[in-house]
């Protein structure tokens, strides 16, 4: 492994063009992740046609680097503006944004930098050491029943966070799942809910919906505050977390690396579910559950470690099996295909140099998060100084470009602004935007794997008794949901929002 890694490193840093592409990927991923309104997916969509002019290793490496650094970059906007740069950063906002409002933005961003780098480097090392055996294990032990069970568990966790009560959390997830049913069904290809619009046959595009729910709805919320005079600019602070504070969260880091890696390795699951699960488990194991959501460092650490730990793991099903784990890894398949290559087991034998250049690039990209991230953090924090009325048009226009570029349809821009208004109204009524987005992301994957699982198990749920991993995940999901429903009916509710405000005043 070490010899291969050194060969990959030499190939990466031995060619000036490859170095330039690597550095451009690192900076571009961070930049697009950190600009509110666009994301690494926007950058990847713009760059995809240009990769045809690159060497195969350079093209795949560029996307892998953007994936690593973009996943970190999205945390910055989640923390500073409550606008996650990508869905995998949504749980980061749960505690990151309250930290900003409490004047601890520096601590939150500093923790995100360090933990993203830690999660990513650990994941890259495991990936280098064990891609082939892990892929073989995943083939034998994980099938559609397990993937469906994990999706169910993830959605149960998502319904437990965000909404004012479990029903609102669950309704948010259901809305996302229903949005995902628009378009062709994944088994028979039958058109569903297109309401007479031919463009909807391909479904609601993922990027515009996410931009609408996260970025546009946040602009609307802040704009309303401006209109009624309750807007308060976030507080700027450049204090980084201390070593003692970070050391105290070591268990959260290790737990999130394991969760992130497990979620990342499963085809189709990816970093988003990893972040939600990392955050959810941090809450479950914490002695101070009530502090989560109010600006707890552990929340930021758990989410950011888990999502970056999933980036390395997501390469395993992609490279070893040819199965993409998300939108960006799906674009990487397109890069392979542009160069007449197919990701899968044969790539390891036909193009080992390509694989090791990608592995080395991911390792160094995660390391660079630490160095470049720490250098740029203090500068980025000054974004908070920009008055909202000047930032808002930039965010809305970047989101417009991000929504339009994917398919070149004005309908997608309409969908984005529609999602923004729906998100704005639902947030006011105590629903969970993160739950809706996770529902949209996992809807198709969940349905497809449910259908395959039912066919495999001959439509008998008892078939899960022979599949311990799937059974465990189903039971964990049912318990998570059951506990929340029980608390909704039998536990004492907290104070009403107005009463909370009065108490804090």
């Amino acid at each position, binding site marked *: 492994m070490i010899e291969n890694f050194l060969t990959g490193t030499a190939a990466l840093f031995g060619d000036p063009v490859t170095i330039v592409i690597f550095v451009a990927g690192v900076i571009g991923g961070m930049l697009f992740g950190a600009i509110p309104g666009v994301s690494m997916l926007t950058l990847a969509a713009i760059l995809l046609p240009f990769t045809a002019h690159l060497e195969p290793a350079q093209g795949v490496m560029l996307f892998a680097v953007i994936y690593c650094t973009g996943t970190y970059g999205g945390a910055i906007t989640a923390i500073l503006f*409550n606008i996650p740069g990508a869905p995998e950063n949504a749980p980061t906002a749960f505690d990151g944004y309250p930290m900003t409002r409490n004047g601890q933005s520096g601590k939150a961003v500093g923790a995100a930098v360090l933990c993203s780098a830690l999660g990513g480097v650990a994941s890259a090392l495991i990936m280098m050491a064990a891609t082939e055996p892990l892929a073989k294990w995943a083939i034998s032990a994980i099938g559609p029943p397990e993937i469906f069970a994990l999706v169910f568990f993830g959605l149960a966790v998502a319904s437990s*966070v965000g909404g004012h009560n479990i029903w609102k959390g669950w309704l948010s997830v*259901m809305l996302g*799942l229903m949005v995902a049913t628009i378009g062709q*069904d994944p088994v028979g290809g039958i058109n569903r809910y297109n309401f007479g619009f031919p463009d909807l046959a391909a479904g609601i595009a993922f990027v515009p919906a996410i931009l609408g729910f996260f970025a546009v709805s946040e602009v609307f919320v802040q704009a309303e505050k*401006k209109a009624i005079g309750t807007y308060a600019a976030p507080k700027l602070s450049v204090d980084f977390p201390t070593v003692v504070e970070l050391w105290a969260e070591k268990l959260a880091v290790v737990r999130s690396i394991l969760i992130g890696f497990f979620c990342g390795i499963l085809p189709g699951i990816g970093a988003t579910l990893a972040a939600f699960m990392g955050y959810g488990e941090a809450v479950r194991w914490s002695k101070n559950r009530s502090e989560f959501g109010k600006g707890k460092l552990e929340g930021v650490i758990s989410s950011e470690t888990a999502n970056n730990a999933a980036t390395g793991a997501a390469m395993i099903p992609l490279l070893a099996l040819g199965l993409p784990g998300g939108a960006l890894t799906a674009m990487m398949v397109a890069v392979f295909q542009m160069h007449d290559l197919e990701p899968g087991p044969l790539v390891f034998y036909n193009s080992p140099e390509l694989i090791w250049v990608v592995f080395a690039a991911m390792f160094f990209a995660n390391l660079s998060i630490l160095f470049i991230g720490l250098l740029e953090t203090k500068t980025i924090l000054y974004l908070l100084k920009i008055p909202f009325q000047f930032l808002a048009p930039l965010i809305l226009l970047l989101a417009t470009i991000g929504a339009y570029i994917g398919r070149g349809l004005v309908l997608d821009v309409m969908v984005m602004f529609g999602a923004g208004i729906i998100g704005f109204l639902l947030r006011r009524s*105590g629903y969970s935007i993160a739950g809706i987005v996770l529902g949209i992301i996992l809807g198709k994957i969940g349905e497809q794997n449910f259908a395959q699982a039912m066919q495999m198990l001959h*439509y008998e749920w008892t078939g899960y008794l022979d599949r311990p991993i799937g059974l465990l995940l189903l039971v964990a999901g049912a318990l998570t949901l059951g506990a929340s429903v029980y608390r909704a009916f039998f536990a004492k509710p907290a104070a009403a929002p107005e009463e909370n405000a009065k108490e804090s005043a």
Partner: protein
Amino acid sequence: MGRLSTVHTIEIVAWSVFVLVFFAYSFEFNQNIEIYKFGATGWPRALLLLTALAVLGNAVYHWRFGDKIQEGRIGIMDDGDEGAQRDIASYLRTGAILLLPFVFAYLLKPVGFYSAAPVFIVLVILLLGERRIGWVIGITVFVYLLLLLFFMVLLNAPLPQGTVSPFYDFSGQLLTWNTQFQEWMK
């Protein structure tokens, strides 16, 4: 009526309509799939059933506890404007800021991004309360040039050019200058 307020009732009615409309529309694609017992409607109808149960649970929760937040909930977005005084002007401003992006999106096809964007920037800044003309013009020019530089010059991103003259001609002129600039750079 317990602690159900008008807002809760509207919420319950809206969700119920959502479930009924989607259920009714599911008959439009109620086709069998030979290899799959549940067909094309099985999954969405199961989701609608779960949604209906959650609507019922939500109604019971509001009936018993009103607006109180369930104990132990985490990650709640604190939008923090409960109890704020709202007047007609604030409603109008909020309505305008919600409506403006739709008008902008509607105009993208005929007018194009390059012509519509500067007007959109000015209107957003004004609606958000900025009245210093120098700042409005300065920020509009800065944001517009920044977007052109990044997406048109650096990335050659294909943006809507418009279909109606003179907006289409203006977009065409900008793109021609961009092409000439790119060739000069080579």
